[in-house]
């Protein structure tokens, strides 16, 4: 089976975002255009050079992509919308990469845009499918995981909450983040309890925003005279969905383990080589679970490593240097694309006071309800 290393090399050449924020009167068209224009400027690429666009969104509805992109010029490029719950943006990114990797396109756009309306239909339709029915919402699901994890490994609720302290500290340095305020452990623990020991600041806000990433072939970098020194290579981009796991095995962790293992293998990179990671930290407990699942450390060890500063900026591997979902926020469509933008910023050495020193290899990870998991591995080749 072919992997990215067998196909045309793919490079991220431009990134752009609209700040993630609480729902406002700003139209989704303006959110999207802000991100795309910033990416085009960053790449020094003109819109007509873009040959396809994959638009990740959950809430915007039919044909949102064209509604946005027509205002950049109706060039006739291929436009498609992709929805994969929280992994919509990640999936849009993978599809844009595949366009270039296949040699069918030279330049492709991945755009994620969303507004914070309540989800309807699909996976969350009101048919009762479990005994507690609508009682087990995502926050309760992850509070259940936190209960099992804390009991199994003797980890305290405070140790889990420290993920929020780290990520809000990072978010405070990020002008694109919804939450830009440093929080103490006390602030986090005393905030409104939602389920179990998970308080409001341990859960991501879901607002609005947009993120855009341009990918191109090596041929296009030459033809368009792009700055090769700022081009970031996409080594792999993998998408998987949930399987049936043995009783008692955590589904979310198992899905992440399988997806990350495949992405790292296809990239020819080991977990220990990763310098930066953007992970699906919608709830604090998730960051610990997924770091262990991806092989950054052994089961039950992530909280101790966090306390030792290993996942902080300037630590062994910067995890959620953008602020993660917890501080950036999680408008559903954009997040996966925004993660790639942050990884690229870090690998290019352009992350300012959020910079992970010497960052060369990064990984972006998202999960989506259903469940699906998308992992991409990137390297900056100087």
């Amino acid at each position, binding site marked *: 089976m072919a992997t990215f290393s067998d196909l045309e090399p793919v490079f991220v050449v431009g990134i752009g975002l609209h700040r993630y924020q609480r729902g406002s009167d700003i139209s989704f068209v303006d959110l999207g255009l802000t991100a795309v224009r910033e990416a085009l400027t960053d790449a020094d690429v003109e819109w007509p050079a873009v040959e396809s666009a994959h638009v990740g969104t959950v809430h915007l509805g039919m044909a949102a992509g064209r509604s946005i992109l027509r205002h950049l010029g109706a060039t006739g490029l291929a436009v498609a919308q992709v929805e994969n719950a929280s992994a919509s943006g990640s999936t849009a990114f993978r599809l844009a990469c595949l366009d270039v990797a296949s040699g069918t396109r030279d330049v492709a756009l991945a755009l994620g845009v969303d507004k914070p309306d309540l989800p309807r239909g699909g996976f969350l339709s009101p048919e009762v499918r479990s005994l507690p029915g*609508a*009682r087990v919402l995502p926050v309760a699901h992850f509070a259940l995981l936190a209960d*099992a994890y804390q009991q199994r490994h003797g980890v305290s609720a405070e140790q889990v909450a420290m993920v929020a302290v780290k990520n809000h500290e990072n978010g405070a340095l990020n002008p694109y983040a919804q939450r830009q305020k440093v929080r103490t452990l006390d602030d986090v623990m005393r905030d409104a309890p*939602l389920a*179990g020991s998970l308080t409001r600041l341990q859960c991501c806000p879901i607002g609005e925003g947009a993120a855009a990433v341009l990918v191109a072939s090596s041929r296009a970098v030459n033809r368009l005279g792009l700055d090769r020194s700022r081009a970031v290579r996409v080594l792999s981009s993998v998408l998987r969905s949930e399987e049936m796991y043995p*009783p008692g095995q955590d589904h979310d962790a198992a899905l992440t383990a399988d997806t990350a293992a495949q992405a790292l293998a296809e990239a020819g990179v080991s977990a220990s080589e990763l310098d930066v990671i953007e992970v699906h930290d919608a709830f604090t407990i998730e960051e610990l679970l997924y770091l262990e699942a991806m092989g950054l450390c052994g089961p039950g060890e992530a909280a101790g490593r966090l306390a030792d500063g290993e996942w902080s900026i300037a630590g062994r591997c910067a995890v959620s240097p953008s602020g993660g979902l917890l501080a950036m926020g999680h408008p559903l469509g954009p997040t996966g694309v925004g993660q790639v933008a942050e990884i690229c910023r870090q690998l290019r050495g352009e992350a300012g006071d959020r910079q992970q020193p010497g960052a060369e290899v990064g990984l972006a990870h998202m999960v989506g309800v259903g469940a699906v998991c998308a992992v991409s591995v990137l390297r900056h080749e100087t």
Partner: protein
Amino acid sequence: MSGVDEDEASRGSSPDGRAPAEPTLHDAGDPPLMHGRRCRACGTCSFPPDDHGCERCGAPPTQLEAVKLGTTGTLLASTTVHLHPMGHPRPPFVVGVVHLDDGPTVQVWLAIEPSTFLPVGTKVHGVLVPRSDEDNGTVDLAFAPDAL
């Protein structure tokens, strides 16, 4: 939707007139039983009852038979919900994950005081709990820890 026929659902009422709030999912028997499916091809039991096909082996609906699942099992996790945007039920309430002795792992409502600590591995069993906002014998299926 599940393939439970009306006969199956109506037989769910108990002799003293209690009726399950979700008759497609469980009955109001003593002890209460849950409605599930068993795949004849691979033997997997599943809940909730779904006739679209076997999630384990992909066998078609003709291979899925209706079964009653016992409501004894082992607790894998529990948590108290403090804030809940839906109208019903009023928080705080407790939910959990139970590995049923008959096979499936299911999310459940736990009939215990909020913020009670329950160790992973606690043995639990199904109990019928009247819906507090209805006074007509309607009952929900919840789980409670076995007596020590």
